[in-house]
């Protein structure tokens, strides 16, 4: 990576960090979880050009790269930002790949998986959607949704008003909207076949990468919070940070954070270089595994205080517990990787590992 890119990225990171520090205080996260949209936070981040940073300028974006977008997502993870930033980014990438202009505002994202099917069909002058998808992130009334749908065997992307669909509203462990969305002849605003660089599978993997980066951000911030807590909390006449058992627990978290960060960063780096190998799969598997180990130890170090709603440790941990499941848990991706390397056999195993 050249110095110019590095400086650009540092600027993006600093800007995102400043916006989130100022406008994403714990009470904003709490309010969002109870259903209050953080208008000022969204407007500020959208005005700064970060919501569609990876979309080409001619399609309404910032003309940056996936790596730039991932920097914003890492910061979002670190502050538990209660906005559909990953979803809006994925939706923008899908739309722009199909030559469509990306609208402003937050976008929900519906990607059918396993045996879920959404079809797109022409009906008179209109195109309509039929079918159902679960776990749709940020399908909120009055908002817009981007849907990946099948039209006669071709993968297409469609933009649709959320109000044109039937939304069975649900939430994940962090109170983020995750709904089952059913289309029954729902009229779309725009649609087109996905571009040849992008298909449902690559979008699913990009989603996995986005969650990996968000978890890396959340993990790092959780480590900082937790170490600080151990230095502030006094028992037996000294900060609990002075107890070796506590120090070693923090060292274990640090190891997990380091592994998660490296995995996510290298995956982004190799994706940009065009040869991600098994790194995206490994990144989601490793960050999801780290999430559970690190969150457990962080809670232990916080004692009863960390178990309260008042303390904001749970903003990180409930997201980690949610995000580790989304776009494939560690178990899901471990299976995928296991199948791949098993094909290589014992003699080919090292090559399969080191070619990444």
């Amino acid at each position, binding site marked *: 990576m050249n110095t110019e890119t590095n400086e650009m990225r540092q600027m993006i990171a600093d800007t995102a960090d400043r916006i989130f520090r100022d406008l994403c205080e714990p009470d904003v996260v709490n309010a969002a979880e109870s259903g209050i949209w953080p208008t000022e936070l969204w407007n500020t981040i959208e005005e700064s050009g970060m919501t569609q940073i990876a979309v080409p300028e001619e399609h309404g974006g910032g003309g940056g790269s996936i790596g730039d977008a991932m920097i914003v997502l890492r910061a979002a993870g670190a502050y538990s930002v209660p906005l559909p930033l990953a979803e809006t980014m994925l939706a923008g990438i899908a739309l722009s790949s199909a030559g469509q202009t990306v609208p402003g505002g937050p976008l929900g994202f519906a990607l059918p998986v396993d045996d879920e099917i959404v079809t797109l069909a022409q009906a008179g002058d209109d195109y309509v959607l039929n079918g159902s998808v679960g776990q749709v992130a940020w399908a909120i009334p009055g908002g817009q949704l981007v849907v990946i749908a099948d039209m006669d065997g071709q993968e297409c992307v469609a933009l649709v008003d959320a109000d044109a669909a039937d939304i069975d509203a649900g939430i994940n462990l962090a109170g983020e909207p995750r709904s089952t969305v059913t289309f029954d002849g729902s009229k779309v605003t725009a649609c087109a076949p996905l571009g040849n660089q992008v298909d449902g599978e690559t979008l699913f993997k990009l989603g996995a990468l986005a969650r990996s980066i968000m978890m890396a951000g959340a993990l790092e911030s959780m480590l900082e919070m937790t170490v600080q807590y151990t230095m502030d909390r006094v028992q037996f006449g000294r900060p609990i*940070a*002075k107890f070796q058992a506590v120090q070693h627990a*923090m060292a274990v978290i640090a190891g997990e954070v*380091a592994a998660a960060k490296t995995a996510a960063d*290298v995956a982004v780096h190799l994706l940009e270089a065009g040869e991600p190998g098994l790194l995206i799969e490994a990144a989601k598997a*490793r960050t999801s*595994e780290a999430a559970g180990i690190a969150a457990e130890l962080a809670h232990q170090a916080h004692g009863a205080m960390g178990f309260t709603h008042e303390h904001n440790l749970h903003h990180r941990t409930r997201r980690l517990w949610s995000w580790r499941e989304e776009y494939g848990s560690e178990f899901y991706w471990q*299976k995928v990787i*296991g199948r791949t390397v098993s094909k290589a056999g014992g003699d080919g195993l090292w090559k399969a590992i080191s070619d990444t």
Partner: protein
Amino acid sequence: MFQGLNFPPLDLPPECTEIRAEIRAFLAEERKLGNAKNIEAMSRYTPEYSERLGKAGFIGLTWPKKYGGHERSALERYVVTEEMLSAGAPTGCHWIADRQSGPLILKFGTEEQRETILPKIAAGEAYFCIGMSEPNSGSDLASVQTKATKTDGGWLLNGTKLWTSGAHISHYMIALVRTSPLDEKDRHAGFSQMIIDMKSPGLEISPVINLSGDHHFNEEVFTDCFVPDEMVVGEVGNGWNQVMSELGYERSGPERFLSTFQLFAELVDAVGDDPSDHEAQVIGRLAAQLIVLRQMSLSVAGMLGQGLVPANEASIVKDLGTNYCKLVPDLSRSIMAAMPSQRSSISYEATLASAILTVPSLTIQGGSREILRGVIARGLGMR
């Protein structure tokens, strides 16, 4: 904000692809001779292998040509090392000389030491061992008691070194000794490092057989053993700082996560190319962790190559890496039942046995898990 969590992604430069192909070709020939598939390849001693490796130009890769080296980059050396270890080639003889004694001599040694010793190491003909630990000095290395007393033209050594890997096949030891008495106010002062010819009179080496029945480490008793002045490495009294810089080479290399790779490969073969869901998940967990550890270790190698000292990152790699090595036999057992036995004719069973009997040492040698976690906690500002 914390020290020790910086792992920038590293791209291996093109020359690494070339040298990888070269070492793979070399190792393929060695495989035909049976020099492959060893668990803990760094403790398998095969002098003929090391000599051939030296002749082929794979030892002392980064050293200046005038000392027998090859002036290649640290990353090229990394690639050669990971290929040797993943192949399970018996790298024990030259391992310590190539990894840390040579670099130490290059950095702190006299011109004469460099000229006489380094070419022999690079040729795969001179082997080294590390004399740090003693019966009463393990994790607390500053408690080392072996004493060097000044005499005409050199030093007289008295004391005992213990757990010395490969002392019995080594030509030289680099020993950490006290050249001045302990100063309670500065426990790290008064140490020096000396190169000891293993054939010196007054040095008695005896084997310490390990739990698998193998002869790997040793005890050395020094009784008025004479070490000439020319064999002191670096400055008298600067031993502690020199030893600490040596540990940097030791903690983050691929050996820290590849010690049980042979078992992983055997497991994949035993399971076959059509694993069940559960088998695939377990194999994938081992593979995912390995892929990530390798990237962390590469990142540290890149920083070392730039002259940085990522001591905390290296400790994290060693802590995670050695735990990973222990996970391999545990998870292997969970999906592939077997009666482990070193005498079994089934290679999975024999390799599983070697792995089980090897892994206890991994989280002890080169800085125990507890010591490493202390280092990491210091990087977090907790101590």
